[in-house]
């Protein structure tokens, strides 16, 4: 039996804007990219065609694999680094900070930078890490360095540090959310049964917080994977990432077909990662919840 007309109309009214939005601004653009990826570059611009040359070029020219692997590596380091910093912080907030006001303040301290422009936050690291930057001045003032070092800026490490700083709120928020939901009674029960703090953490808290880690990992990983600002601002001559290559195909090379094919390859990688992490998350829930 179907719902009365008025209810169905209301449902449609609520659902149609997001559906329309998704269709117009997600589905159609991706469909256009898909079509473009079979086109062919022909001076001075590009022409409709149906051929797999762009995908073939991505597979055969080693530069694309090199940049993809580099991007994966950097995204992995950023996610790992964020998790290693964010987890202890969130744990501290949830289990060690007693006063709710103080806890909120510390939580906001991580989230608030999101309100500041990404560019500004990334640019700040140039000022910190540069040859005449704050870090060098500090190390020289305490006598660690006798002259400014250039190793801090314009390399992949600087990119990883900057990206961790920029994306870490996306790791803290989901981990904080899952840790907060863990009933304190479970931890008390564990301790009542004579299990030590460290084993309680390994056997109870950590497994229950896996969905949060996975969610944070997925977000920081995909955000880093698509980043093209950090390489320009703080990356060195070996900083090129896949999003920069795509941007240059749409711009400098005026090869939208190749750019579209690259974008779709990138989309496939990101979707694969999201699917895998989704499995992990469900596995975690099924096993431990």
């Amino acid at each position, binding site marked *: 039996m179907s719902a009365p007309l008025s209810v169905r109309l209301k449902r449609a009214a609520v659902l149609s804007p997001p559906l329309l939005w998704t269709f117009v601004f997600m589905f159609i653009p991706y469909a256009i990219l898909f079509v473009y990826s079979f086109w062919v*570059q022909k*001076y001075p*611009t590009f022409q409709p065609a149906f051929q797999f040359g762009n995908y073939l070029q991505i597979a055969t020219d080693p530069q694309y694999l090199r940049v993809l692997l580099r991007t994966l590596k950097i995204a992995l380091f950023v996610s790992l680094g964020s998790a290693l910093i964010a987890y202890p912080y969130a744990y501290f907030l949830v289990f060690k900070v007693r006063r709710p006001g103080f806890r909120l303040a510390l939580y906001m301290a991580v989230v608030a930078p999101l309100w500041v422009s990404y560019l500004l936050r990334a640019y700040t690291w140039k000022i910190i890490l540069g*040859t005449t930057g704050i870090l060098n001045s500090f190390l020289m003032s305490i006598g660690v360095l006798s002259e400014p070092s250039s190793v801090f800026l314009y390399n992949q490490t600087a990119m990883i540090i900057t990206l961790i700083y920029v994306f870490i709120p996306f790791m803290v928020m989901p981990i904080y959310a899952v840790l907060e939901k863990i009933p304190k009674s479970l931890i008390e029960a564990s301790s009542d049964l004579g299990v030590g703090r460290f084993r309680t953490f390994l056997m109870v808290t950590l497994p229950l917080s896996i969905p949060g880690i996975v969610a944070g990992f997925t977000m920081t990983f995909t955000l880093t994977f698509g980043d093209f600002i950090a390489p320009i601002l703080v990356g060195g001559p*070996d900083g090129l990432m896949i999003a920069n290559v795509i941007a*240059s195909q749409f711009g400098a*090379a*005026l090869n939208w077909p190749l750019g579209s094919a690259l974008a779709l390859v990138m989309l496939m990688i990101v979707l694969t990662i999201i699917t895998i992490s989704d499995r992990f998350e469900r596995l975690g829930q099924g096993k431990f919840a």
Partner: protein
Amino acid sequence: MTKKRFLGCAGIASICVATLASASTAGELNILTWEGYADPSVIEPFEAATGCKVSATYVGSNDDFAPKLAAGGGVFDIVTPSIDTTFSLIEAGFVQEIDISRISAWGDLYKQFTTADGIQKDGKIYGVPYAWGAIPFMYRKDKFDTPPTSIAALWDPALKGRVSLWDDKSALYVAARLNGDMNIYSLSDEQIAAAQVKLIEQRPNIRKYWSTAGELVDLFKSDEVWISNTWGGYQSALLADEGVEVVEFIPEEGAEGWMDSNMIVTGTPNEECAYQFLNMAVSAEGQGGVFRVNGYSSTNPVAAKEFMTPEEFSALHQDDPDYLNSLLLWENLADRLPVYTNAWNSVKSQ
């Protein structure tokens, strides 16, 4: 209104109402150009004199023109690409023929520019030369005991981590000249591969490839970089303002030259204003503006005499046709452009 445009508009009605409304307002010019080419000191008197309102959008590189015009939408009326990009815009049909009888100073402009291949097709003219200069190299005076004279200085192991290059296909032009390949705009695949090898060899010396004018100024100012190629006259002046002493030089291997032209976008509804703007740009007012703001050389030597001192006139090589002829004036790479771009990306992927 063309049929195509109308159909496009039916789809996204609200956006198009705004577009059509603004398009029908007479005397509004949207120019896609370089920072410094639409300075208020030039634009405001022009607006006051003609009643044409000017809005400028800035590009970061010549590679920005075609994608912005290819995206369509009839947004821009005038573009100011360099001589390596002009011809592909003509071939793509993005710009329209210019009636030179409506450009009063046409006869005063350098013949090398008004007859350049890049701005004409089938005997028709598509661009009005506006400004020109070289891509010399510049170095921090306090860091070099003996002034560098060759591109090879950028490969000197003593300059580890102190070199920068423009993040652009022109890096290949530099490396090719070091290899002795002077045909930098028609390099063969082997010559490009050899240039790539040279650039990868240079990697330990590179601190950062610069992508905007301001970035290179920052790199010199914050003591990251001591030597690089540069947009002649522009960044060195900005650094001089900051108290950083740099010296520009043309290496033994020669320097690239560039020339920017104003072009009218195909089908502009503001043609009258566009021609007024083009005339202003090559007049003493317009040329004086680009000289004062950017320090670039003038394409109109007759007008330049009005606002340059004799010393400035010769410092900017306005009286020296040999200098102009010695520059490797940028050329359109046509169907070789993607080869160059991918080769440069490949260097950066290492």
